[in-house]
């Protein structure tokens, strides 16, 4: 019988009762990645959510043709693939193990099924993910303010009209 992954000490599972942890453990399976291994490939499937318990991963995206930009380095404990869970199961960026990585994999389909059935365990995990997204949105908002201010300064100098760009970004503002 495979070892049940321990969910103790992982912030994401803090609110869960022992029974709820067991319920979630049923759809989790341990996963390991060697240094350099690909976890998600940009544009490829994102059918599994990983709770990274040790190691470091790197996030890259092909923003401009012929080059890959490093967007982030993420250290355990962390969750990756949560955007695929909440939106479309397609990776917006590539994620690679920088060091050996240990994780718990959660199948997206099964997790969504639990949510559909109003599982409190799954809802509690989503609450924690939601909290991290709320903070990410706060930071993104500030980045956008920076972008808009720059574009407006350009505009004031009589450069290209940035209104269209600014308005598109603003439409997506989350308060």
């Amino acid at each position, binding site marked *: 019988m495979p070892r049940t992954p321990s969910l103790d000490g992982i912030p994401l599972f803090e609110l869960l009762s022992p029974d709820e942890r067991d319920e979630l453990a049923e759809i989790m399976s341990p996963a390991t990645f060697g240094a350099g291994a690909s976890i998600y490939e940009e544009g490829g499937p994102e059918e599994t959510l990983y709770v990274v318990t040790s190691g470091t991963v790197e996030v890259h995206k092909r923003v401009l043709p012929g080059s890959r930009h490093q967007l*982030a380095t993420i250290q355990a404990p962390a969750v990756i693939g949560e955007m695929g869970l*909440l*939106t479309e199961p397609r990776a917006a960026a590539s994620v690679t193990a920088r060091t050996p990585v240990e994780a718990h994999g959660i199948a997206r389909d099964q997790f969504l099924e639990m949510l559909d059935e109003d599982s409190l365990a799954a809802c509690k995990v989503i609450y924690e993910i939601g909290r991290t*997204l709320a903070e990410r949105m706060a930071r993104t908002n500030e980045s956008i303010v920076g972008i808009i201010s720059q574009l407006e300064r350009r505009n004031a100098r009589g450069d290209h009209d940035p209104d269209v760009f600014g308005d598109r970004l603003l439409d997506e503002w*989350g*308060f």
Partner: protein
Amino acid sequence: MTEEKLQGVRFFEFLTDEERSELMEGAKPAAFGPGDEIISEGAESSGLFVLMSGRVEVRKRLSGGRDRLLAAMDADREATVVGERGLLGRSGASATVRAASRVEAIKVPRETFRRMISDGRPAAFKLSYRIARTLAHRLTRLDEEIVEAIRDLERQGETDLEAFRDRLITEWTI
């Protein structure tokens, strides 16, 4: 009465009648006059507001003391929710929401919401799921917009935009 009103609000469609009543137990009606601040930029969130009637403006301070209109919303046309991010996050409000006419709203106070979370109440967790999905969709779209903008700017081949473009990339939040 508050509870009945919420039935028609699309944002709360995912809740059962029972869960809606559960959420509404701790909610209270709120009214604002023209010019009143419903949410103040930088201030800690006091809760989520379901705007039931009236018009509001959303404004953001920019550098140099300027102020920019981000959005104008008309709750007379359709009930609108504001302040949902603040319910989950720790950071202060990222913009000011000000009444442009008389506004009637239902407030779900943050303390009530947090207490429901500590008590393990499903309605609060389902509301979190709804908010998380909204945030995830917005973040995804923003990322896509920004990538697109970077590519557009690159095609124009303007060297003075390099620093700007790099900043976009380094400030990116995954």
